[in-house]
């Protein structure tokens, strides 16, 4: 049994003579909420692209959901959930159609799709708007739907790339509660955010600076270590 959802060693990505990701090493345990932070341009996106099978590392090894990121990229894509800040929902499809579409993409049977659709609609309370195009939904609901859809194939790990940019403070909190729920049920959550208060909601947080992981620990330990009151202060001390 593999106890880690992600296991990365010396992971490096170079573009020409520019090293975007510089030998990063870390593990993420199953059921953990792992915050992946860094300033713009620190290499977060490049690192994440390697983890989700979209980009091949120049050096180093990595396993995600038990698959080798160098040789099993396709299996990783099928085995993980991914949600980006641009929510990859189809705006002119209805709520129901979006769920069915993604169910189909991930190879669920018709029966599974029907079951999953009911489950998601029930959980999110979306029956009222089931036949509305997604475009008509408020941002916060699109976000919850996008999150649900990213887990339609029941992946053991979900990658959330700045999932809460610009959303209402209430909605942001509701969203984090669903994250807690999922983690509580054993799903691993890998999340990037620019909201430093959200960093505090994570079990552990890594902070990337110029391609390297400069700090990695629980928010409490990081605050102690950097003699700071908040994660915002920690971040400023490290990244500035």
């Amino acid at each position: 049994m593999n106890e880690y959802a992600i296991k990365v060693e010396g992971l490096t990505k170079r573009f020409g003579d520019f090293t975007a990701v510089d030998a990063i090493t870390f593990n993420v345990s199953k059921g953990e909420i792992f915050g992946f932070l860094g300033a713009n341009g620190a290499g977060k996106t490049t690192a994440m692209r390697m983890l989700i099978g979209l980009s091949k590392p120049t050096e180093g090894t990595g396993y995600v959901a038990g698959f080798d990121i160098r040789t099993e990229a396709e299996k990783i894509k099928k085995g993980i959930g991914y949600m980006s800040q641009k929510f990859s929902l189809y705006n002119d499809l209805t709520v129901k159609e979006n769920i069915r579409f993604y169910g189909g993409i991930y190879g669920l049977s018709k029966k599974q799709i029907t079951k999953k659709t009911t489950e998601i609609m029930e959980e999110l309370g979306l029956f009222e708007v089931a036949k509305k195009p997604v475009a008509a939904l408020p941002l916060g609901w699109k976000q919850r739907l996008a999150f649900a859809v990213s887990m339609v194939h029941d992946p053991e790990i979900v990658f959330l790339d700045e999932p809460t940019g610009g959303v209402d403070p209430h909605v942001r909190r509701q969203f984090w509660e669903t994250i807690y729920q999922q983690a509580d049920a054993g799903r691993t959550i890998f999340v990037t955010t620019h909201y430093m208060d959200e960093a505090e909601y994570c079990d552990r947080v890594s902070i990337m600076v110029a391609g390297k992981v400069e700090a990695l620990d629980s928010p409490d330990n990081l605050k102690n270590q950097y003699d700071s009151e908040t994660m915002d202060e920690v971040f400023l001390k490290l990244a500035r």
Partner: protein
Amino acid sequence: MSAITAAHISKSFGEVRALQDVSLSVEHGELFGLIGPDGAGKSTLFRILTTLLLADEGEASVAGHPVVKEYKKIRRKVGYMPGKFSLYQDLSVQENLTFFATIFGTTIEANYELIQDIYVQIEPFKTRLAGKLSGGMKQKLALCCALIHKPEVLFLDEPTTGVDAVSRKEFWEMLQRLKEKGIAILVSTPYMDEAELCDRIALIQHGKILQTDSPARLRTSYTHPLYAVKAADTYRLLKGLREAIYTRSVLPFGGFLHLSTRDIMDPEQIKNDLDRKGFSNIEIKKIEATVEDVFLELSETDELKTATR
């Protein structure tokens, strides 16, 4: 005369009521924040005030000119940084700046003093194409371009969205310096912590202004007892506190939960209750409300209800 006045502005797009009876004023040398989530109507208000969109109802004036009758005069006197990056991606940093200076009949040199602080940070990259800049640098260039004609009034629509915490802090420091030069600044942001850095703020949601005041006065308008609570398992604590009879509301705030109670309580009392319920590593303290507490208190919780109404 205020730098910006808006009186009873309403605007609808089909059935969507983007702005409903919005009024505000911004003084010269004031940094005024429009604080609210995406879809609150912030950008619509900006577009009306910058003369790019007509309101259905209400009146507004900017730099002493009414927005409809004298829109051309306003356009010479305001700087506008839209939410979407709107510079020429295939022009270099310097070319973009020269372009905007020329359009306004001035030169980079003539107003260099105003942008110097900001421009020196991107000057090392002045030959780089704007499209190839990082998020933080794009934002600085956009601000320079909005300032190059020495505007009286500056409109910044979500300048820090998607920008990391370090660049955000630097950006706000720049705004403080600009304000001291007498420029009126209307800035919108979805980040509640940035509200604290404004002289006055208006909280906006679903096209309506919930309240306008200084951050300090807004904070003290929150009258319920408020405590910051923490324990080993945050999620379980959240669920536990939600069921407690003394709880009015409980919401996550970074490492702590903010617990608002029906009556004033001794923190020890709450601690004892949590002890009894089996929580460990309990920390609790009485706190003052933040702007975000106030926003959460005033705003509606259910987006879907509001949208389908």
